[in-house]
């Protein structure tokens, strides 16, 4: 057996955790969106690794990762649009300032 799947899964776990940390701690809204993209990319890496090295290798994993990329693109576009609208109304893109529902 030439290649094993464990390194790919570990790399995806590392990327997912870095993205989670960024999404939880960054103040800038654009960077929070980028961290979420990083987490989605880690999931894509898992899908493609299982599509080649999994128990039943098939092309379905690649199809699912294509769907995932599409959803990520839609999410990024809507997220940037909402950020621009918030910036126009509130004058800030800092996610820690968006706490009007707490009051």
């Amino acid at each position, binding site marked *: 057996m030439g290649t094993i799947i464990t390194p790919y899964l570990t790399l995806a776990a590392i990327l997912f955790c870095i993205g989670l940390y960024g999404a939880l701690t960054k103040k800038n809204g654009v960077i929070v969106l980028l961290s979420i993209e990083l987490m989605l990319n880690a999931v894509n890496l898992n899908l*493609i690794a299982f599509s080649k090295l999994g128990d039943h290798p098939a092309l379905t994993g690649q199809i699912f990762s294509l769907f995932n990329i599409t959803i990520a693109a839609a999410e990024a576009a809507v997220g940037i649009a909402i950020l621009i609208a918030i910036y126009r109304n509130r004058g800030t893109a800092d996610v820690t300032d968006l706490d009007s529902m707490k009051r």
Partner: protein
Amino acid sequence: MFSGLGDFLSSGTSWAFFIFALLAIGGAIFMISFTKVVHMVIAVALTFISLAGLYVILEAEFVAFVQVLIYAGAISILMIFGIMMTKHRQEEEEGPKRPWHEGLAILGAVGLFGVLFYAIQKSTFVSSENLDVGKDNTLEIGKLLYNVHVIPFEIMSVLLTVAFIGAIVVAKREED
């Protein structure tokens, strides 16, 4: 625990994986640690391109080029435009105002990684047969996409249209 490691580091594919993985993790860590937002976007673009290289290693060429087009091209440029449209103080200010929050986030991320790493190392993965993608990966994906998965594909195109129209409506100026 690392029983496959010596075997892993003996072939050229594994070294390519090692280099791409280092680039990907390095880009992600630079994204977290840089202070200027444009540098963060460039660093995460490096991560996206390294992941495309990993997809080529995994014989998913079509997904690799889609990754370069969508992530490294479209999403990075979209994020840079988002940075341009919203004014920033250009620096994330130094020193966390909420140290307990940062500590809890580090604890959560490291804890999640610990659980995932333990699960990955404990499980055994058997690769029963090799993936037969034929000569042309793109052709096979196209056949699957237009035969088996045609309804999700069409729903996805509708969703993409609705999301982009919604993005335009949300981001449009109110006065005109």
